[in-house]
C-alpha cells in the first residue's frame, strides 16, 4: 500500500510503486486536472506541487511521493493561486487549456519565491511548460499582473 497525501487528504493506494504519480492521481484518485503530455518531463502538462514546488508527476514514481504533501490544480487555493487565476481569466490566457494546469502550478511556484519577476525570471521558471496554442505572451503578462496584484494586497495588509 502506498500512502499519499493529496490536497490535504490521505489516501492508501494499492498500486505498483513504480507507477508514475501522474497516473495514480488521474486513474486511481480521479484527479484528472493534471494532464499527460509527454511522459518524459519535457512539457510540463503534468506538473504538481510536492511540498510546495513544481515537479513533473509523469516521471515521479508514486512511491517517491510518500510522506510528502502533494497539491494538484484541483487543490491549489492560496492567495497566490487566486491572483494567478484572476489574472489568467482577465487576460483570456487560455486557449485549448490542456497545458494550463501545469502553467498555473509553475506560475504559483514562481510567485511564491519571487514577488516581482522580470521577463528573464518568468522565462526561466516557465520554460518547462510547453503550450502548443502558444499562449506564452499572455502568460508573461498575466504573471506580471498577478504579481502586481499580490504586491498591492501585501501593501494593504
Amino acid at each position, binding site marked *: 500500500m502506498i500512502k499519499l497525501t493529496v490536497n490535504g487528504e490521505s489516501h492508501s493506494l494499492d498500486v505498483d510503486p513504480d507507477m508514475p504519480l501522474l497516473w495514480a492521481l488521474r486513474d486511481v484518485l480521479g484527479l*484528472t486536472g493534471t494532464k*499527460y503530455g509527454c511522459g518524459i518531463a*519535457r512539457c510540463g502538462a503534468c506538473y504538481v506541487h510536492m511540498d510546495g514546488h513544481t515537479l513533473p508527476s509523469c516521471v515521479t514514481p508514486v512511491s517517491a511521493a510518500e510522506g510528502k504533501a502533494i497539491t*494538484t490544480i484541483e487543490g491549489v487555493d492560496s492567495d497566490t493561486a487566486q491572483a494567478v*487565476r484572476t489574472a489568467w481569466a482577465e487576460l*483570456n490566457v487560455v486557449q*485549448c487549456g490542456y497545458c494550463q494546469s501545469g502553467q498555473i502550478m509553475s506560475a504559483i511556484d514562481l510567485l511564491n519565491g519571487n514577488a516581482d519577476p522580470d521577463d528573464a525570471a518568468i522565462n526561466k521558471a516557465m*520554460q518547462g511548460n510547453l503550450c502548443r496554442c*502558444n499562449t506564452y505572451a499572455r502568460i508573461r503578462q498575466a504573471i506580471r499582473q498577478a504579481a502586481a496584484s499580490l504586491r498591492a494586497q501585501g501593501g494593504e495588509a
Partner: protein
Amino acid sequence: MNAPFKLTRRQFLIRSLSTGAGLTLALYLPGCGREPEADTGTAGPGQAGARIAPEVEFEPNAFVRILPDDRVEVVIKHLEMGQGTFTGLATLVAEELDADWSQIVPVPAPADPERYNNLLWGKLQGTGGSTAIANAYTQMRQAGATARHMLVQAAAAEWGVPAAQIQVSKGVLSHADSGRKARFGELAAAAAEQPVPEEVLLKEPEEFTLIGTFLPRLDNAAKLDGSAVYTQDIQLPDMRVAVVAHPPRFGAKVRGFDASAAKQVRGVIEVIEIPTGVAVLADNTWSAIKGREALEVEWDESAAFRMSSEEILADYRDRAKGPAAVARSEGDTAGALERASTRLTAAMHMPYLAHAAMEPLNCVMQLTEDGCEIWNGEQFQTVDQQNVARVLGLEPGQVKINMLYAGGSFGRRANPHSDYLVETAHIVKSAQGNAPVKLVWTREDDMLGGYYRPFYYHELEAGLDGEGMPVAWRHRIVGQSIMTGTVMEGGMVKDGVDATSVEGAANLPYAIPNLEVDLVTTELPVTVQWWRSVGSTHTAFAVETFIDRLARAAGRDPVDYRRGLLRGHPRHLGVLELAAEKAGWGRPLPEGRARGVAVHESFNSYVAEVAEVSIGDNGRINVERVVIAVDCGVAVNPDIIRAQMEGGMAYGLSAALMSEITLEDGQVVQSNFDGYEVLGIDRMPEVEVHIVPSTEPPTGVGEPATPVIAPAVANALSVLTGEDFDRLPLRLAV
C-alpha cells in the same frame, strides 16, 4: 451514464426560415425520427449526464434554449479546441437576443448533420478551415433574433402593449410607459406559445453591443481549476485503457506476437490483434503502457517504406524535371523569361511536420444496445460516424457522439479516414464483453503515427524587366496530395491538381503578366494530412521569400516593391500598410537587428507580419518582436482574434525555427518533444496585433497567422546575413 435530455413540453414545427443570405435556420422537427439531443445542464463539454437537465422552457430552434432560471443555453456545433468557438458562436446569439453575457451557457451539440452541419461543407458536420464564425455568422444571429422576437411578442401579449414599444437589453424586456419589466426566464413559457417568425430582422453593425467588444471566454473557469473535461479524462465504470503497439515503419504489418510477458503485467486484461497493430487492454493507463513494453511483436516489413528524408528530397528534385499538372497559366511565361533582363531561380524544401497538439490522440468508445457511443473532442462528426459505423456494421445514425473539449488539434483530430476512431472501433469490436475502451496514444504514438503536413519541394524562377519589376514567374511544387483518397477528393482534386497543394501559390496576388504554377503529385506510404493553414504552410514561405529576393535584386524596398504589385488587391495592401506602419518600417533599428515582412491571404483572411530578428552569439535566431495586421471582416471577438494571431503566428514560428519530422531508413526519427522541438516561452517574441476595421462578412482567424511568420523571419535574416534561405526549419550557414 448519459442522462438523456428531457424533451420540452412544447415543441415547434419550424417552417424553413429562408432569409436573405440563403441560409436555413436548422429545424427542430418533433416526431421525425431520431432526435439526438444536445447535452445540457452543464457549462462545458464532458459533463454530459453529470446532473439531470433542468426542463427547458423555451426552445425556439436548434441553437437556443431559455431556462426558467434565466440561463440561456447556446448549442455550439463546432469543436472547442482552443480557438474560442464556444465564446464566438455564443456571442452571435447573445448579440441578437440582447442577452446578458453572464447568462450565456455554451452546450456542445450532438452529432447531427441535418441540424448541425457546417454550412460551408454541405450536409457535413465538422470544424476546420477556419470556418466556424464564417459559416455560422448569419445562422447563429438568426437563432438569437428568432428567440428575441418570440420573447417580445410574448411580452406584448401579456402586457397588452405594442411589441414595437418593447425594449430588450441585457436579458431584460421592458416597456417604458407601463413600467413593466421581465427577465427572459419569466417570459420563456409564454414565448414558447408564440408562433415562430418566418423572417427576422438582424441588427446593423452600428447596433452591436457585444460583437466587437472584449468578452471573457466562456471556458475560462473550467480551464483554470482542472475541471474542464477532455477525452483523456473520461473514466467510465469498468473501462479498459488500450495502448497499441504500432508498426515501426509505414507499410509494415504484424507477423506474430507473444503476449505472455505482457499478460503478466499487473492490470493487463487482454491483448488483441487489430489491423493497425496489437492492442494491450488494461484497467489503467500505466499498466497498458507497461504491458505494451513487455509485448513482443514480430513485424512483417517486406512492404515497409525505407526511404530517408534526404532520399525523398533527391527523388523530388528528379521529379521536378518531369511532367507537371498546370494549376494556373497566364501569358507566355517561357518567352517572357527568355526576354527578361534578369533571371532568378530558387529551390526550396520543407519537412514533414507533426501537429503535436498538447493532448495526444485518444478516443473513448462503447458498444451499446442500439449502436455505439463515443466520447471525444470531436472535429469531424459526420465522417467519423460513417467510418466508425462501417467498422462496426452500424448505420451512421447509430453512432452517438459526446462532444468534449480537445487539447488542441491544429487539424489532426479531423482525419478523413478517422484513423484513431477507427482504431478504437476495431479494439471495441475485438475485445471481450462490452466494456468501454479508452484508446490512449502516448506522445510517441502521436508523433510517430503519421498524418503529417507533407514534405514539399518547390522550384521558382522569375524574370525581371530593366526596372527590376517581374515580367515572368514560374513556380513548380512537388509533394503528396492531402485530399486524394479522401471523401473530399471529388471536390478538391481537379485535373491532377489538389487545390490544397497549390493554394497560396496558384492564387498569387502579385500582378505579373506571365505566370505559370504547376504541380507534381507524388505518392508515398507516409500518411499526410492538413496542418494548421494547410497549403499555405509551404506556399507562403516559397512565394513570400522569393518576392523578397526579387525586391533585393531590383534594389527596392520590399514593402514598396509589394505595394507596386498589389494593385487590385486592396485587402492585401491594407494589412501590409498597417503592419509596416505599426512596426515602424523604414525606421532605424539597433545594430544587429533587421526587419522582414510577409503578407498572405488564407481562408479569405488577410495577414501581414513584420518580424524583428537578431542573431545571438551562439548563432541562435532570435525573433524579438512581431507586428501582425489582420483583415478578417467584422471582428466578432477582437480579443480572440488577437489570441489566434499571437498563437497562430507562434505555431508557425516553431516550424520556422525548429520543428521537423525526418525519416531515416523509413523510420521517423523524432518521437517526443526532446527530438521534435517546439517553441517555449523563452523564444516567444513580443507580439502586437492590429485589426483592420471592416464591415465585410467575418472570415476565419484560427489559421491565417501561421504561414506568414516563416517568410517574414527568413526575409529579416536575409537582410542580416545577405544569404538566401531555402529550407525550413531555417538554418544559418555555419
